[in-house]
């Protein structure tokens, strides 16, 4: 019994610090912009931030599994686009029902993740290279399939409502938070549970901490690594549906650069790039920090080129702060 109480205390202290740090930063940013701009802390603007976070948040959730397992996925941005395209082809070109389009879109992400996983675990291609290849494959395929031009969803399908409608608004009038945001939070809860409560999540930490030790413990590395990349891919698929619904179209040229924002969100949220450490809450906070900054700076009429520069500086400082925190712990 003594062991148990001791354990509880320890765990809360170290985990809370990590979450509080990122969360505190988010609050400070919020307060700063609220003072700097009267239009920042309004319902419509906060909803705007939430929407802007949704897609990046979903991608970041997927990439978090992979980074914790000691890997990296550079293909999430263009795979997301491929998912949108596949979904659009199903619904617009083949006239299939919307749910089929959604399922195909999400599964496309899973399949791309599966191939990433096979390349990395079975063929032993370094993750950076394998997923860089996939980045281009997915981008190329999107352009080929669409013949370079966007596919628009017919309005009567109501595809746009998947992201921009508000189930919450119909339940609580006046509280019109778009579905995209709910989807992201829902996905975050699922991702968090999968990471902390299921065997695949546990193996993410094990592989990221010491892959060889896990292998020699009888963990089937090829299987589980492939599973982890596939799982990440499914989240990318969801992001693909959300972005397609938001734009009510599949834009084949979109997607590049999204992977870096997703990785940045994870890193700001305290996910260690060397693997073995991280939480989904951290990742979501990281995603919010990025979109809040972008939004706030725009509110203050900071030119876009400077917004990008500031985001870069924030990433560097976030990681540096994390390093200082770790150093003090030892």
């Amino acid at each position, binding site marked *: 019994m003594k*062991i148990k109480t001791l354990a509880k205390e*320890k*765990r809360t202290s170290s985990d809370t610090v990590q979450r509080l740090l990122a969360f505190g930063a988010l609050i400070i940013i919020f307060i700063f912009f609220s003072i700097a701009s009267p239009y920042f802390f309004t319902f419509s603007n906060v909803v705007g931030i939430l929407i802007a976070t949704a897609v990046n948040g979903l991608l970041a959730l997927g990439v978090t599994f992979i980074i914790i397992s000691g890997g990296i996925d550079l293909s999430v941005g263009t795979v997301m686009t491929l998912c949108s395209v596949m979904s659009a082809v199903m619904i617009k070109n083949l006239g299939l029902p919307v749910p089929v389009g959604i399922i195909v879109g999400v599964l496309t992400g899973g399949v791309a993740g599966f191939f990433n996983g096979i390349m990395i675990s079975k063929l032993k291609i370094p993750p950076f290279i394998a997923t860089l290849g996939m980045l281009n494959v997915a981008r190329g395929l999107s352009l080929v399939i669409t013949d370079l031009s966007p596919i628009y969803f017919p309005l009567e399908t109501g595809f746009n409502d998947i992201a921009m409608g508000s189930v919450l608004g119909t339940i609580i009038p006046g509280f019109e938070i778009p579905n995209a945001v709910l989807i992201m939070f829902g996905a975050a809860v699922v991702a968090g549970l999968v990471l902390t*409560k299921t*065997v695949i999540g546990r193996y993410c930490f094990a592989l990221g901490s010491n892959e060889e030790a896990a*292998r020699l413990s009888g*963990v089937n590395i090829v299987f589980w690594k492939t599973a982890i990349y596939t799982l990440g891919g499914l989240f990318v698929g969801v992001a693909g549906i959300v972005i397609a619904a938001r734009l009510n179209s599949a834009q084949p040229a979109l997607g590049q650069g999204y992977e870096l924002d997703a990785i940045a969100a994870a890193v700001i949220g305290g996910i260690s790039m060397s693997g073995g450490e991280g939480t989904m809450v951290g990742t979501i906070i990281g995603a919010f920090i990025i979109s809040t900054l972008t939004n706030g700076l725009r509110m203050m009429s900071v030119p876009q080129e400077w917004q990008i520069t500031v985001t870069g500086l924030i990433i560097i400082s976030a990681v540096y702060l994390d390093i200082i925190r770790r150093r003090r712990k030892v």
Partner: protein
Amino acid sequence: MDDVILLMEGIDKSFPGVDALKKCCFDLKRGEVHALVGENGAGKSTLMKIVAGIYSKDNGKLIYKGEEVKISNPNAAQQMGISMVHQELNLMPHLTAAQNIFIGREPHRGILLDENALNDKAQEIFDMMRLKVNPRTKVADMSVAKQQMVEIAKALSFNSDVLVFDEPSAALTDVEITELFRIIRQMKEDGVGIIYITHRLEELKEISDRITVLRDGLYVDTVKTKKTTIDQIIKMMVGRVIYESKPEIPENPSQDIVLEVKNLSRGTELKDINFNLKKGEILGFAGLVGAGRTEVARAIFGADPFESGEVFVKNKKVKIKRPSDAVAHDIAYLSEDRKRYGLCLGLDVKNNIAMTIFEKMTNFLGWVNDKSIYKIAKRIVDQLSIKTPSLEQKVKNLSGGNQQKLVVGKWLAKDAGILIFDEPTRGIDVGAKQEIYSLLNNLTHQGKSIIMISSELPEILRMSHRVIVMCEGRITGELDYGDATQENIMQFATIRNGGNLSN
């Protein structure tokens, strides 16, 4: 020559959840070998890492050459003339021996590196050590023992006044240990103060002048080697009298063969390996470092591929392509290098124990049952008396012996029937060794079968029902309990000409 060069008083050091050192003291004279002994987690390595500037002390005084000093980092320690040979190898495998030795101090010619001068300087040190190593050889291409010697050469290259050896003999064979002792004596004559941490108590008499004992982070006593017996030292270490139990006469294991290996071969590393393992038996694998014992184990376990040969488990031929296949056939492998291959250091105790059984501890959704894992982990921690403040403690904060027990615990959780122990007692102290031995015996009584690879002959002789001796990738001898002696094992272990299968 009797002056004190290093004096430590009232040293405190704590890590998260552990008080590693409490009011420790230590002194070292010029030209003496001062041994530092104690059980695992007694604080030996921690104390020395403070001397070498790797850890900073929380409290206490450190007086070096008559002045109180603060050693803030390893570099500062080396500048002051204190260097340390670590228990773990800290070499860069892709660099050559010479490049490793002089890393950060490479001789220059203008802005270019002077590779020749570098190699000449390294060769000088090797000559002094009478070590046959080409300074241009990449460290990755050397045996572990040679790498250890390079590490020692590196420490020597600083011309230090104080030299700390943290269990240098763990990876070395007897011949190399003799060489090491010769080098130590030579330095001693030059007035260097040497601190020698070891678990091999029989070495104390041979090399040390004084012995300091630590226990649970506390200073126990310092004694003159000549006036002390090994038994007294052990008593001080464990705080109680333990009797080195006489080897049990092994009960006759049953004749059921649980594992049979036929004609296992791989290139020049493994040549035509044939043996079997019976139910309830401990099969000892003896041989010098590099004889191929670990390679046999890893091949059977599927960790490395083999070119030809067959493996039978319970008389059925099995295909083992990867470790998960071996585990499915009830085989477990406990690596000699626990940090690299045995544990996820960044994870906590309970998750490391459960590493082998996660897939069993889940429901159809893959949901992990943390409560049962906690229960199992708690049972194993208690059973092996692993010292940890909690089951959530990160494994990297545990001492070596406790980490080793944890690796054993992992496979206890899996309840595997065939266990391959690769150097199960490397780098752990007498008390923990005893525990591992009785654990092995218990396991065989439960009907489990064990292959035990060990470089310590007394251990092999004491534990094994049968002994297989390897040399240069082939089996050179097989001895029954009773026939095996240190002498005949060594004889088989040194049949260098590829010899015939005797016996």
